[in-house]
């Protein structure tokens, strides 16, 4: 394992009854990286994050955070990480200020420091004006911002965020994403699970895709997309729609063709040859191009392809 890795996971396994929730999962997360953990519902994301944050113990395998084994010294490990679990809430009978102070106390932050940090974070997250109000009255977005603020009160080196923007309004989502970006600039390492593929695409340096408890791919978003060359496509629109579109299928390297409104999307391994053929076709039929775009596979395409592949294997 590399020395710059702050999270080192090897052969992690968790079994619930007869179900293998996480099956021999191994990966590393480097210092200062935003590492995305993607997968469909029930893929094993939350179980993995629960093992890494010391909430539950793995049945097999090892997880080290900054070189400390989570099973051997969970308290020391938990002190250096901030956690936002998927299913969590603030104490609604306490004010946002009291929630911050309580968290600071649990993490052993000294009084002066926790008060200064609580003020700084509440201001940063736009909650300072309502610091003395009981959080019962807060919206979901405000509560989520407060939970994120609470997870930062002890200046953690690593942050575990399990679906941090799920079900939030646009404003809160944007604020949280902006803060995640800022944390990256400060050198924090962030482990992020999300359903939102576009979010992972925008934020993450690397992504692991998990399905049925197994990691099916780990790489940077762009590299993941480039490995799926057959999913490259050309989107074309002419000034009039040609009557016969069968010619599209006769062009070499065309994998699939879809009509989307007034345009066509043609999937190919070789966009260059396809464009040349399209130009010939347009000239022959006296068509004018309205638009012509080459498109790489989206991360969503990659995600669907990978998870469907595992699904198909699973049902074989």
């Amino acid at each position, binding site marked *: 394992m590399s020395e710059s890795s702050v999270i080192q996971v090897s052969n992690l396994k968790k079994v619930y009854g007869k179900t293998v929730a996480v099956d021999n999962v191994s990966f590393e997360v480097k210092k200062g990286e935003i590492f995305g953990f993607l997968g469909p519902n029930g893929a094993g994301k939350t179980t993995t994050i629960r093992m890494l944050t010391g*909430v*539950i113990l793995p049945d097999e395998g090892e997880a080290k955070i900054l070189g400390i084994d989570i099973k051997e010294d969970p308290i020391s490990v938990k002190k250096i990480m901030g*956690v936002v679990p998927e299913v969590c809430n*603030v*104490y*609604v009978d306490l004010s946002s200020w009291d929630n911050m102070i309580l968290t600071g*106390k*649990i993490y052993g932050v000294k009084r002066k420091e926790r008060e200064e940090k609580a003020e700084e974070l509440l201001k940063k997250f736009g909650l300072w004006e309502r610091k003395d109000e009981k959080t019962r009255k807060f919206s979901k977005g405000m509560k989520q911002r407060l939970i994120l603020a609470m997870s930062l009160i002890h200046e953690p080196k690593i942050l575990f965020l399990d679906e941090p923007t799920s079900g939030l309004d646009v404003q809160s989502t944007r604020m949280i994403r902006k803060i995640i970006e800022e944390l990256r600039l400060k050198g924090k390492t962030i482990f992020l699970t999300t359903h939102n593929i576009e979010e992972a695409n925008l934020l993450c340096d690397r992504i692991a895709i998990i399905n049925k408890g197994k990691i099916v791919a780990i790489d940077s978003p762009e590299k993941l997309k480039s490995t799926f060359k057959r999913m490259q496509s050309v989107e074309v629109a002419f000034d009039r729609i040609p009557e016969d579109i069968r010619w599209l299928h006769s062009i070499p390297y065309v994998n699939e063709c879809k009509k989307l409104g007034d345009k066509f999307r043609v999937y190919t391994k070789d966009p260059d040859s396809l464009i040349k053929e399209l130009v010939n076709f347009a000239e022959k039929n006296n068509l004018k191009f309205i638009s012509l775009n080459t498109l790489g596979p989206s991360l969503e395409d990659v995600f669907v392809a990978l998870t469907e592949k595992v699904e198909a294997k699973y049902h074989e």
Partner: protein
Amino acid sequence: MSKLHTKRTFLYTLKASLVITEKNARIYYLKAPVIIFGILFPVFFFLAFALGKKVVPFILVPGLVAMTLFFTSSSVGPLITPWERNAKTYERLLASPVSLSSILLGDMLAGVIFGVIISSIPLTIGILFFNAKFFHPLFLAGNIVLSSLCFSSLGVLLASPAAEAPSQVMMLSSLVRFPLIFISGIFIPLDKLPFWGKVIAFISPLTYTVDAMKYSLYDLKSYPAFINILALLFFSFVFFSIALKMHRKNLIKAL
């Protein structure tokens, strides 16, 4: 791990338990189920028993103080974990640098403090109006602390099933707690119980609290004083150990 590291971790987790106790006190002492099942219910129950009858003070006062200790100390614990699960604050607590035993210790201490504070009210009434005296003040203090420790451990144990709603656990806890008050020498003195009653009384921790309370306030007893103390220590240890095991076992179901 070095000894220094172990010592630091121990002190840190102890501090964390106290923080959790403080949190519990602020959030849960005034919750309706605690007030209803911990204070109002036993008071009305006792009044129903005592009013209109000629009950001698050495039965009335130790019984009332013991029953208050029993209900108040054991009413906080069953509420906390189910409430936290329901309010979705439990997982964040588990992810913080506190062990499960520290969390449960914090829950237990919250019950102890609540029990000690509330039971001082009937104790004061007993001393002012019912001729109770501090015959053995240190023993009395020890009895109050140990009994509340024992009953709050029972409360923490009652919170261990992975129930979805706090009301389910409160119902279970009432089911366990109410029968105990009839077989522990509160309403019927131990020497007047039939043989089978005496056997059951022997396995109820409340019996030892009531007996120790009679000894402390009226210098009367059925068991030797040290037996009461040992029994309360034993029950505290057993309840807390089982509670820890059960909470650990049900942790995944509860998330």
